[in-house]
C-alpha cells in the first residue's frame, strides 16, 4: 500500500474516530456509549492495520490485533458485565446539557486542528491528521469524564482518550515500539479492572454510584 493512500485512509479513519467520540458525547444511554467506544476501537485497529500495510512494520499488525481483542471486545465486555452486575439505571445523567457538551466538543476539535495547523513542518513526522485528531480525542475524552456523573461513562471517556493517544502513537513514523504498546495496553486493562473493582465495592457497600460520592472536600 502506498504511503499516499495510507495517509488518505488515515484521514478518513481520523474522521471516523472523531465521529465516534461525538457519538459517545451525544449518547443518552450507557450502552450506546459503550458500543460507540467499541466501534471506535475497531476503527483504531483498522488504522493500525492500514499503517502496518503502508510501513511494512509487522508490529503494527500485532498491535491492531491486540486492539481488537482488548479494546473492542474485552473492555466493552467488562463494562457491560459491570453494568449488568450492579443494575444501575441506564440513562446517562449529564452534569451539563448534552447539547452544551456537543458545542464545547466542536470548539475543542476546532482548537486542536488550529493548534496542529500552526505547527507546520512537524506534521511530516506524523501521518495525515493523526496529530489533531489525537489531541481532539484526548480532550473530548476528558470532556466526557467531566460532564458525566456516572462512573462507567467516565471509564468510557478514559478509553476514548486512550484511543486518541494510540492513534497518534501509531501514526508517528513507524509506530511506537511493540513492547511499549503492549505495556500501555496492559496498564489500561489493569487500570480498568481496578476501576471495575472499586465500582463494584462501592455498589455493594453503600449502594450508590462511586462517582456520586462527594464527601471529601476542602
Amino acid at each position: 500500500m502506498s504511503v499516499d493512500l495510507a495517509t488518505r485512509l488515515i484521514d478518513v479513519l481520523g474522521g471516523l474516530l472523531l465521529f465516534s467520540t461525538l457519538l459517545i458525547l451525544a449518547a443518552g444511554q450507557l450502552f450506546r456509549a459503550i458500543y460507540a467506544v467499541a466501534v471506535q476501537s475497531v476503527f483504531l485497529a483498522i488504522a493500525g492495520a492500514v499503517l502496518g500495510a503502508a510501513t511494512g512494520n509487522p508490529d503494527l499488525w500485532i498491535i491492531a490485533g491486540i486492539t481488537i481483542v482488548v479494546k473492542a471486545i474485552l473492555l466493552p465486555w467488562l463494562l457491560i458485565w459491570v453494568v449488568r452486575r450492579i443494575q444501575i439505571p441506564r440513562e446517562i445523567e449529564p452534569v451539563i446539557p448534552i447539547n452544551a457538551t456537543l458545542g464545547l466538543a466542536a470548539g475543542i476539535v476546532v482548537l486542536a486542528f488550529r493548534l496542529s495547523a500552526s505547527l507546520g513542518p512537524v506534521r511530516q513526522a506524523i501521518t495525515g491528521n493523526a496529530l489533531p485528531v489525537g489531541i481532539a480525542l484526548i480532550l473530548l475524552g476528558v470532556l466526557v469524564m467531566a460532564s458525566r456523573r456516572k462512573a462507567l461513562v467516565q471509564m468510557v471517556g478514559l478509553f476514548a482518550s486512550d484511543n486518541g493517544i494510540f492513534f497518534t502513537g501509531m501514526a508517528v513514523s513507524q509506530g511506537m515500539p511493540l513492547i511499549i504498546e503492549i505495556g500501555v495496553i496492559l496498564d489500561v486493562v489493569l487500570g480498568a479492572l481496578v476501576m471495575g473493582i472499586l465500582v463494584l465495592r462501592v455498589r455493594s457497600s453503600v449502594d450508590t454510584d462511586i462517582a456520586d460520592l462527594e464527601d471529601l472536600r476542602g
Partner: protein
Amino acid sequence: MASSLLWLTPLLSFAIGLAMLLVRDRRVLATLDVAGSLVLLGLTLAITGRVEQGGPVSALGIFRADHVTVLFLVLIGLLAVAVSLVTVGWMRRELARGQMRAERLRYYYALVHGFLATMLVTVLADNLGILWIAMEGTTITSALLVGFHGDKHGLEAAWKYIIVTTIGISFGLFGTVLVYGAAAHAQGGVLAGAMNWSSIVAIAPRLDPGIIRIGFIFVMVGYGTKAGLAPVHMWLPDAHSQAPTPVSALLSGALIKCALFGIIRFHTIARAACGPAFSQGLLLTFGLVSVVVATPFILAQYDLKRLLGYSSVEHVGIIALGLGFGGRLGTYAALLHVINHGVTKALVFLVAGDAIGRYGTRDMRVIRGLLGIAPVAGTLLLMGVFSLAGTPPFSIFISELMIIRAGIAAGRYVILAVFLFAVVTIFAGFIHRVGQMVFGTADASVGREPEARLPVLGLLLLVAAMVLLGVYVPAGLDRVLAHATEIIVG
C-alpha cells in the same frame, strides 16, 4: 554486574511482593517487609556507588541510572526502610482496633512492595515509554492501597485518585508520543532506542521546537497531575488523607517525587530543544499556582492528614519553582528539596499516623497534649512540622533559602514576593495548629501505650537525615547533586 542491578532491584522488590502473597503469618510478613526494604536500600546504595564512580549505567537498552536517578532511588530506598519499620507498630495497632483484617494483611504487604517496584522502575527507566508504563503501574497499585480499608471515604478517594491520575497521565503519554515523534523525525526514521531519554537528549538541539513545546505542555499537565501540582491536584488531599498512613508517607514522600522525576526528564529535553525560557516559564506558573492554592486550604484545615496533603501540594510547587528559576543554583536547590521534603513529609506522616492511632481521630481540634503521652512522637512531630514550615536549622530551610537565592539571581521578584508571602502565612498556620496538638494535656481516654522500639528506629532514621541535611550537605550527596544539576542544566 552493575548494569544487571538496574533490573534486579525492581524485580527483587516485585518478587518479594509476590512471595508475600503466599505467606499468612503476620510476623513473617513484617520480617519480609523490613528485610526486603533493607535489601532494597542496599541495592540502591550499590547502584549509587557505581554511578558515582563510573558515571551513568544502562541495562537492557531500556534502563539507565545516572545521577538524577540515584537521588530518587536512594530516597525511595530510605523511605521504604523507614516506612517498613514504622509499619510494624502501626499494623499492630490497626489490627487491635479492627481497622485491618488479619487475613487481608498479605495483600496489603504485597501491594506495598508492588508499589515500590513500580516506583523503582519509574526512576530507573531510560525508555520514556517504560517510564510511563511504570508510572501508570504506581497508580494502579497505590489506588488499591488508598482504598484498602474499603470504607466509603477510602473508596471515594481511591476512585478520584485513579480516575484523575489515569486521565492525567494519559496526557503524559501523549506528550511522550509527541516527543518520540519529533525524535524519530529528527533521526529520519526510527533507530534503535529512539524512545530512550538518553538518545533523545543527545539529539535534543535538532528536535523541532514547536512539537516539543506542545509535547512538554502535555507532559507537564500529565505528570503534573500525578505530582500534585495545582490546579490538577484534586486527588491529592483525598488520597493522602484516606490512605493507610504508611501508604500516605510513601505517596507523599516518594510517589509524587517520581512524577517530578518524569517532569525533570522532559524538562531536560525541552530545555535543550527550545531554550530554557519555555519550560521554566511553565514550571514557574504551575509552581506558583500550587503554592498559592495550597495556602488557604492549609490555613482552614482541621483534618491532620489533609493538612499534610495540601502541604505536599505546596512543596511540590516549591520544587517546581526551583526548577523554574533555573540556573545551577535553582536546579540544585530543587533536587535537594526533593530529598528534604521526601524525608520530612514521610516522617511527619508517620508520626501523625501514630498520633491519629492514639486519639482515634484526624481532627486536629481533638488531638491535645501529644508530648505528654508519647514524648518521642510529640517531639518528632514538632521538629518535622517546624522543618516543613521552613525553620532553621532543618533541611527544608536550606533548600528553600537556595531556591529564593536562585529566584533573586533570576530576577523574578514578583514571583518571589508572592512565594514568600504564601510561605510565611503557611508557617504561621502550621505552627499554630501543631502547637495546640503537641502541648496541653490529653484526655484520659487516649491510648497511652509506650512507644515501640522498632517504629521509633524508623522515625529516627528519617529525623537523622532531616537534621543532618539541615546542618550540612554531605560531600557524597553534594557531588551527586552537582552532577545531576549538570545533567539537567547541561
